[in-house]
């Protein structure tokens, strides 16, 4: 099993939101619209939309990072021109969201939202700051490991994926019910980015790589 089970009681919010019934197959219907996906134009995304450090007058506080990788299909082929969206907390672990009650400072120079389209090699690239860990009240002393939220479209609505990227060596992953909801160790490792000295830019920013492999559609696997 690749994805977490919907019902993962250690993550309390799943208890009343996880569907109880098994999902229904629609395999074998080649005309199913779920096997197609919206397409995006490069003119829809601004040139600076992938740089979260340049969206305000000043620069955000925090450790500058470059995060890049490829969006691949299950055979390892690049997924071109697909939309990648990213959002995150600021360096203090606070979201620019009205309902985030964590008493950590907001950063007037950081919204924490970006997007880009992959290039012909399936590659995306973001410049941002490393988010802070934050508490979330799921259980006593619950803290989310530092993470970036990713949203990817792919070539079919069935390949649509929302996930989270973690940073290598974060001690909080071992205690995090959301990360640990993924049953399989190899699948968990997929969500941990790799530090890259090659990507790291002198006197500027640390580099991390993070590839995303999208699922095959039900028809492809049937």
């Amino acid at each position, binding site marked *: 099993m690749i994805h977490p089970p*919907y019902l993962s009681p250690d993550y309390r919010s799943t208890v009343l*939101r996880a569907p109880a*019934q*098994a999902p*229904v197959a629609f395999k074998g219907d080649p005309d199913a619209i779920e096997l197609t996906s919206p397409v995006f134009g490069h*003119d*829809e995304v601004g040139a600076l939309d992938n740089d979260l450090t340049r969206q305000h007058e000043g620069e955000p506080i925090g450790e500058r990072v470059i995060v890049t990788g490829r969006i691949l299909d299950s055979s390892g082929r690049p997924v071109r021109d697909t939309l990648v969206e990213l959002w995150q907390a600021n360096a203090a672990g606070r979201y620019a969201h009205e309902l985030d009650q964590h008493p950590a400072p907001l950063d007037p120079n950081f919204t924490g*939202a970006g997007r880009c389209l992959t290039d012909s090699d399936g590659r995306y690239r973001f410049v941002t700051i490393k988010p802070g860990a934050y508490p979330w009240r799921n259980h006593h002393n619950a803290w989310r490991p530092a993470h970036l*939220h990713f949203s990817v479209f792919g070539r079919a609505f069935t390949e649509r994926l929302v996930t989270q990227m973690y940073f290598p060596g974060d001690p909080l992953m071992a205690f995090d019910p959301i990360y640990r909801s993924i049953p399989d160790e190899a*699948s968990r490792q997929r969500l941990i980015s790799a530090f890259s000295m090659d990507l790291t830019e002198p006197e500027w920013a640390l580099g991390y790589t993070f590839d995303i492999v999208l699922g095959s559609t039900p028809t492809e696997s049937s």
Partner: protein
Amino acid sequence: MTLTPSQTVGPFFSHALPYAHDWELVPDSYAGAVTLTGHVYDGDGAPVPDALLELWLGQTGDRGVLRRGSGLVSGFGRCATAADGSFRFRTARPSGPYLSLQVFARGLLRSVLTRVYLEDRPDPLLDSLEPARRKTLIAEGADGRYRFDVRLQGDGETVFLDF
């Protein structure tokens, strides 16, 4: 290759994923526009105020997905639920019998995928379901105004697709 597993969209996406007019796939003036409204409920029947819904018609239309153009048509839309769990879309009628609807929320470790049929009719998927389950995929309404509720769990639980 090992696939990338899903993780929840979490509670704090509204500064990032919604965009201007995201729920309006067609302009107000569009002839034959369909409005689709409803609520998302949890296993206690309580509204889900922090879900994100995505509607897909299977055709992109003549407008880019994100950028708005007056009078143009998109095949994709988004709507974050309001505090009362409600959502709304204004869309063109799909060329087939149903619209594809995907729902993300805090507490959903992976999105759920369902279909909104605008009328009950013979259909391979509908015909594979027992009547009470089948009913969960049929929107109520006519004349371009439809209601469709998403029940994530329990009584009247919406049929979700395996994907």
